[in-house]
């Protein structure tokens, strides 16, 4: 078996090979083990992701006291439900209402709240989103399928420092009969970034 084994019908790019070279050299030097790398991958796949954020949002929708705590101290309220850690150490939750719509971007690079949303999608890291969301957000949102009424105040949050942001979407109409678990199923990653309604 080689690095370029059956998983690679195409030749490896230079940078793919460099990534593999860095890993193998660090393993040989005893700095890291590949098992540690695998363990991190597993955590990103299993433990972090929008299902956590959806749990937080659904709780806020059914529990006014929790919602109040979430909006006043996001980090602590999210920790109450068992989520926190790297890239979620200073959380602020932004409430969408009938009058205000919030949307999050990182023009610098890719700041994103890992514990509640996982790793960011490619479009969030792409130059088009990063360059335009702070200049023509309504146009970008419309392209992404969200047409905002003109009288809604649009707030764009550029998370270039140490605070990480998550949007609390509005609870959809007609969901009064749903359980907390059913509500969580309605919550999407895009809704919690603010590029879609829920």
């Amino acid at each position, binding site marked *: 078996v080689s690095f370029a084994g059956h998983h690679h019908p195409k030749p*490896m790019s230079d940078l793919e090979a460099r*990534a593999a070279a860095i890993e193998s*050299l660090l393993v040989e030097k005893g700095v890291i*083990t590949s098992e540690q790398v695998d363990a991190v991958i597993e955590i990103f796949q299993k*433990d972090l992701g929008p299902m956590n954020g959806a749990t937080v949002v659904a709780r806020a929708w059914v529990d006014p006291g929790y919602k109040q705590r979430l909006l006043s101290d996001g980090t602590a309220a999210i920790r109450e439900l068992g989520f926190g850690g790297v890239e979620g150490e200073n959380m602020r939750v932004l409430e969408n209402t009938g009058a205000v719509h919030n949307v999050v971007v990182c023009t610098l690079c890719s700041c994103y709240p890992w514990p509640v949303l996982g790793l960011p999608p490619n479009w969030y890291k792409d130059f088009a989103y990063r360059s335009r969301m702070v200049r023509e957000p309504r146009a970008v949102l419309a392209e992404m399928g969200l047409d905002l009424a003109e009288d809604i105040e649009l707030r764009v949050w550029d998370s*270039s420092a140490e605070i990480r942001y998550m949007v609390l979407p509005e609870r959809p109409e007609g969901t009064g009969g749903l359980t907390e678990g059913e509500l969580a199923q309605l919550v999407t990653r895009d809704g919690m970034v603010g590029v879609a309604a829920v």
Partner: protein
Amino acid sequence: MGGMHGFGAVDASDRDAYHADWEKRVLPLRLAVILAGRGHGDLRPHVEALSADDYLSRTYYERWVLALQSSLVQADLLAEGDIASRASAIRAGEAVPPKRAEPSPEISDRVAAVVASVTKHGVAAAGRFRQNDVVHVRRMSPAGHTRCPRYIRGVKGIVESVTGGFPRPDPGDHPVEQTYTVRFDFRDIWGEDSEEGVLYLDLWEGYLA
């Protein structure tokens, strides 16, 4: 990058976090180096030190590979020539990948504890500004890493909240400084014919006047 023209439409269909399977190992590789206590410093200065050509033509994780390489070489952990020759051997199918076991529960638990840990607390810091103060972002043009986006320099805003002291990540001794969430009107940033809206941006005290 904020405000630049010419990047076209957002491809909202590109919903995955990676462009290729191999990219999944890059960030975990970096975190494993941090776990080993050898990942000194932020990788972003290395990303931003890439040539404009590399920065604009590479994928996100390709930029990270170049930045990781640069940080490891700078830390004397690896030599660039060794990485290049190993990469050539791997491409030629001449290198044997290291043996790998399933992650043991012990490794998984230790890694999980690190990922769940909290290292960036805001701390109390003396600050000059209060909520609702009018501030101006300083005009500046640093060559290295900064968290003061170019598009906001010189613009007037209002302090929306005081958000705690954090080390300012610009090159140098990283003093702990008060940070603020500052609210800006889109028209003050982009002119009278801009879209209506407000921008919130977190800024270190040293960026403000």
